[in-house]
């Protein structure tokens, strides 16, 4: 690993927090996207069944 001297904690902490937040955001986005897709497919299927 890099030698970051006396600022090691600050650098690691801020990178961890920033990247952690971004990863969290990406995960939430992907989950919401998958759920919305499923719900829409289900709704479209019901609609097709009704009119079919």
């Amino acid at each position, binding site marked *: 690993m*890099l030698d*970051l*001297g*006396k*600022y*090691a904690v*600050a*650098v690691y*902490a*801020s*990178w961890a*927090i*920033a*990247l952690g*937040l*971004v990863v*969290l*955001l*990406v995960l*939430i*986005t*992907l989950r*919401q*996207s998958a759920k*919305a*897709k499923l*719900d*829409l497919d289900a*709704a*479209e299927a*019901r*609609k097709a069944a*009704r009119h079919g």
Partner: protein
Amino acid sequence: MTETHRTKQAEDRWNWLWEWANPVKFMSLSGKILPWVMGLCALTLLPGLIWGFFFTPEAVNFGSSVKIIYVHVPTAMLAINIWVMMLVASLIWLVRRHHVSALAAKAAALIGLTMTVAALFTGAIWGEPMWGTYWAWDPRLTSFLILFLFYLGYMALWGAIDDPDTAADLTSVLCLVGSVFALLSRYAVNFWNQGLHQGASLSLDKQENVSDVYWQPLVLAIVGFSLLFVTLLLLRTRTEVRRRRTHALETRERMADA
């Protein structure tokens, strides 16, 4: 539609943009370009961050803490620019009633909130070794805290209203008025306390502020973060369009049952 209207619309040089406003067209267009944006984002963000983290020297006054700049500045820039983007999207919704525009503003809010929090935290952690304190009521820090409150209020209003069109209208009005007051707060805060924070590190006279060694990876990281925003925005807007369609279908079902 009369003949003159039709020709006028055909001549509208913004037509390429309004294509995106049709939800069906939006879904097919965004679906097509999404992998490309994602790829470009990976191609800029990862090298930018790796370059910034591993291959930049220590700075004279900052030591290795200068590496925080690669997560602090991009998130801070996005935090402000996303609010501006939401303002533009809200205006487009209010004037031209394009649903995708309202949904894009809604989709952007959580990204903006995350970026604001990230900028605040990285700034606080950087502030401790530099200024000897995690938090100071410095104008820039305070403005970001206020921006955070505005994002919270905006998202809370979206969440509180059931009818999607009403929610879109009210949040757009709030975004408009909120922008004016956010700007006022910025000046009020400046007036209230002149602070510790150095000026913008990316102004045109970059030589004075940041030397090339730090500047080049920083630009790459900023481009990467911006593309990340576009990727997430497209993904989230697609989610919102799907939700809206599901909502419409379910409402219709209930009407048929009644």
